[in-house]
């Protein structure tokens, strides 16, 4: 089909890169934002702007709160069809209570699951999840969208397309293509070392775009490779769902064997039993970690088979000081507080998996590495964006001569995924601060605003795209850069007006979650304004709007 291997690789890189590049751009950009998802949560939900808290007292604060909890009305309604007879008013058989926090979270995630009486499948479970203020046990409103962890983060791995997990599959496919693109890119690039530090910004847009493409791809190659790869590892159970399909009987059996081996009961005994002091168990777990030379805070607490004689309490350490997601779990008998089991040292395979998933999910406490990850993610964005620009620059003259529209369409789509995505993100933050906090379904309005604005930017990009068909630049690049430069400071201003937390105040008290988001918005606006000026018709259209990505974190 092609004369040689290099040309085959070039074809693969160009066309798969182009099609999946639009998806990868979303994945990389929102991945970079997700590094600071908890901080964006603070910015978007002002009620949660206080310092991170350790796991609160279970006996005094969590237990009464859990006892008041019931599954949400919506989840009960959804379950109705799978149950014989009417649904009960209260669900009294609690399968589990859980609480989760990290070193960056002021608020606590609490969840409970309930058995469903008379369900056709006895495994049916009703879940409920809330956000709690750990200082007083009050629950935060459920319809406040935490933009970081509930919108940008899932956008990163699922495009928020939840129907049949379609988005996760698309992202997985894009990740696979990313690996192929890295490999083919290395094959195509003849001068990896000779041009390692090369950015010839005075040459043609086509040349300088290719330089930036190579630079951002090569210097961060280990980052790109490991994040595409570990992303696939994290979702391996979705992409290869053997445990719940072909191997389902084995899965059940394995669960029972595991319960037998660990001594942690798989089933309820059916005999009621009281709950001993969980605070004492938490203290015991922390003492044992300290004795092992790894003193730490509690990250995750789970009580299985609540109220039953078989009930047990599992306590896991917050993984802040190493990459691997290791919990060093301690399991106690709930009725007596007796230590049932301490998780054994991990096997080599587990260690590797935990390192790979931990590398990507980054629960560690290391601000420098977090920022370096943002740099890596934005370098990925630059790489993809300059790839689009190179594609267009290389073809637009031929297309103009032949009367083709191909480069015009690609350029408009690139606009939508580069500047359009930034505009939509800034607009969403602005809408978040403009809408009143008590508005019902506030989160739905924010989502609608994000997608609506994004579609508008795409429409604008197409509307202004005619010059590309004449081998000139689309003025929408400049106009959308100005839009970013206006929207981002507007969001900062709206934050000030709606909460009183202006930069002078947040910086003075070093409240970095809010100050950081504000500063990043301002930096993003500055870069966008600079790019817009460079793109104005008087100056040579040399500087790529893609650099607007560089400082937006």
């Amino acid at each position, binding site marked *: 089909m092609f004369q040689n291997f290099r040309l085959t690789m070039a074809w693969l890189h160009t066309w798969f890169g182009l099609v999946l590049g639009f998806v990868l751009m979303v994945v990389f950009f929102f991945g970079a934002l997700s590094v600071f998802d908890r901080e964006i949560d603070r910015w978007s939900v002002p009620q949660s702007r206080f310092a991170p808290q350790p796991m609160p007292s279970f006996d005094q604060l969590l237990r009464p709160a859990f006892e008041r909890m019931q599954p949400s009305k919506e989840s009960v309604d959804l379950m109705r069809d799978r149950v014989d007879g009417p649904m009960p008013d209260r669900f009294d058989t609690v399968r589990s209570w859980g609480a989760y926090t990290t070193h960056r979270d002021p608020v606590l995630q609490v969840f409970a699951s309930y058995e469903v009486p008379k369900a056709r499948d006895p495994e049916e479970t009703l879940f409920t999840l809330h956000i709690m203020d750990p200082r007083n046990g009050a629950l935060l409103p459920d319809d406040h969208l935490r933009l970081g962890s509930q919108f940008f983060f899932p956008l990163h791995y699922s495009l928020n397309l939840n129907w049949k997990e379609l988005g996760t599959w698309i992202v997985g496919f894009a990740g696979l293509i990313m690996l192929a693109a890295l490999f083919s890119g290395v094959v195509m690039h003849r001068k990896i070392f*000779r041009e*390692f*530090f*090369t*950015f*010839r*910004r005075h040459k043609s847009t086509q040349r300088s775009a290719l330089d930036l493409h190579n*630079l*951002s791809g090569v*210097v*961060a190659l*280990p*980052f790109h490779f490991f994040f595409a790869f570990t992303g696939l590892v994290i979702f391996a159970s979705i992409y290869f769902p053997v445990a719940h399909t072909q191997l389902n009987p084995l899965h059940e059996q394995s669960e029972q064997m595991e319960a037998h081996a660990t001594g942690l009961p798989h089933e309820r005994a059916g005999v009621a039993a009281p709950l001993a002091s969980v605070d004492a168990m938490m203290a015991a777990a922390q003492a044992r970690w300290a004795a092992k030379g790894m003193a730490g805070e509690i990250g995750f607490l789970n009580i299985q088979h609540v109220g039953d004689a078989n009930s047990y309490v599992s306590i896991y350490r917050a993984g802040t*000081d*190493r*990459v*691997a997601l290791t919990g060093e779990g301690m399991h106690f008998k709930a009725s007596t507080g007796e230590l049932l089991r301490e998780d054994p040292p991990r096997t080599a395979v587990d260690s590797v998996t935990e*390192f790979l998933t931990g*590398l990507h999910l980054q629960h*560690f406490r*290391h601000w*420098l*590495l977090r920022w*370096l*990850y943002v*740099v*890596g993610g934005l*370098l990925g964005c630059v790489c993809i964006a300059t790839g689009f620009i190179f594609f267009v620059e290389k073809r637009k003259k031929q297309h103009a001569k032949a009367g083709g529209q191909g480069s015009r369409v690609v350029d408009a789509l690139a606009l939508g995924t580069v500047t359009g995505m930034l505009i939509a993100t800034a607009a969403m933050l602005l809408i978040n601060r403009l809408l009143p906090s008590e508005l019902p379904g506030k989160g739905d309005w924010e989502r609608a605003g994000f997608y609506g604005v994004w579609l508008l930017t795409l429409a604008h990009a197409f509307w202004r795209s005619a010059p590309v068909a004449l081998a000139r630049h689309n003025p929408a690049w400049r106009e959308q850069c100005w839009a970013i430069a206006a929207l981002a400071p507007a969001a900062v201003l709206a934050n000030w007006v709606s909460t009183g937390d202006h930069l002078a105040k947040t910086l003075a008290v070093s409240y970095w979650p809010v100050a950081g988001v504000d500063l990043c918005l301002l930096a993003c606006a500055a870069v966008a304004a600079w790019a817009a000026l460079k793109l104005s018709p008087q100056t040579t259209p040399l500087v790529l709007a893609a650099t607007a990505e560089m400082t937006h974190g």
Partner: protein
Amino acid sequence: MVEFAVWMLAGAAALALMGLGWLALAMEVHWEQVHGQTGPKARTRTLLRLLGSMLLVASLLLCLGADHPSMAVLVWVMLLAGGAVLIAMTLSWRPHSLRLLWPKPA
């Protein structure tokens, strides 16, 4: 203790940047950009490569001193990525400033 780790990481970043700068200066194109004359001489080139590589290793050692090894490796790899971009951008916008790393030969 925490303070000390911060200093080690700052040192690791500085060494990585300097090491990458020397490795870049060992290349003819970049030497010309920085010094405006052909070069470097064969001996200087070997020296630059040797010193540059040694600094990168020293940077890794500082990372290992600051963090758990699993984390240190990630920090180091990402410092190299960020450092390489900084050097490339300096070469493109302010090449002469790299004379700080290696004076122009007389």
